[in-house]
């Protein structure tokens, strides 16, 4: 059983579990699935600073902090006790491309050469982790949701604004990964 759980899960297993999160949250308490809203609730709770956008009763959203806390705990459990003993398989074309930028450690979920404290003090690491993170926070709130709130919850409820948002997420990702990221990774 443990051996079975340690293997990487196929896309359909994960897709079904993530899809079932939508009705689970609705049935447990009328909650709409959405993760980026937590970033706003953290602002509202910690640094409202008189900004109107952060003036609301964030305590009503406490459930979402519990949900995110569960995600962090689940990730801890999976990576400590259910970890795949074999290296992560990655597409050969991607491996070749990344090796050209000096990225050779494919053993983890994130490239160790990029996601590390030392990397933060390089121009490349700073742009990817700090500027990239800023764009995630700014962009998701500007769009009114992220992959969970728009692509999964919004599309499940057949909302066409969510379809537009999802297409823009993908378009932005394609542009960045194929046209801009190669220059950043060369730094």
């Amino acid at each position: 059983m443990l051996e079975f759980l340690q293997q990487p899960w196929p896309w359909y297993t994960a897709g079904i579990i993530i899809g079932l999160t939508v009705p689970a949250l609705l049935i447990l308490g009328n909650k709409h699935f959405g993760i980026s809203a937590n970033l706003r609730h953290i602002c509202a709770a910690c640094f409202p600073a008189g900004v109107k956008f952060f003036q609301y009763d964030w305590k009503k959203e406490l459930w979402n902090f519990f949900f995110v806390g569960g995600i962090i705990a689940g990730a801890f459990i999976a990576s400590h006790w259910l970890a795949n003993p074999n290296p992560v398989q990655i597409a050969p074309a991607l491996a070749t491309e990344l090796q050209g930028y000096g990225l050779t450690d494919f053993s983890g979920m994130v490239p160790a050469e990029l996601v590390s404290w030392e990397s933060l003090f390089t121009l490349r690491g700073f742009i990817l982790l700090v500027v990239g993170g800023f764009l995630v926070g700014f962009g998701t709130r500007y769009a009114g949701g992220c992959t969970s709130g728009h692509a999964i919850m919004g599309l499940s409820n057949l909302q066409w604004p969510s379809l537009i948002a999802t297409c823009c997420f993908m378009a932005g990702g394609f542009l960045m990964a194929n046209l801009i990221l190669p220059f950043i990774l060369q730094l």
Partner: protein
Amino acid sequence: MAQDNFNSTTVAETDFEVRSLDTMCVNESHLTHRWYHNLKYAAVGVLFGIAFVKAEIISWFRIQEMFRLQSFHMYGVIGTAVAVGALSVFLIKKFKVRTIYGENIEFHDKTFNKGQIYGGLLFGFGWAMTGACPGPLFATLGTGAMAISVTILSAIAGTWVYGYFRDRLPH
């Protein structure tokens, strides 16, 4: 009720996002519960977090493969999740399924604004750069890659800056 803090008279002119657009408590439970009732959401989160790691959705490499069309994996995950989610929502609506507390489950339509285009593109850039959307950012922290905490703080800063300037941004 739900509209207490965001009633139409005070924020209507500037609240481009409106509550229904966001994932805020547009249809929060009208019942009040003790804090430990929230533990059930943590339990859902645990399962969700395990799936994130075990299916390598939090992998920076999987996201790069997705945006380079080098792998079907992420398309399969998101496609299956949407199909299961849509079927669930359809069944909930059709059979008027209630919450475990007996309340009606409510849905609200999202309204279009240009933020979904501009913000969507900006988030797409960030998604490809960090290799993570908000859920996987938190999950990556759980796997012990602590440097990602800087990315999370930066995302919180990005959200704050958006909140500060939102009246001056095109929507």
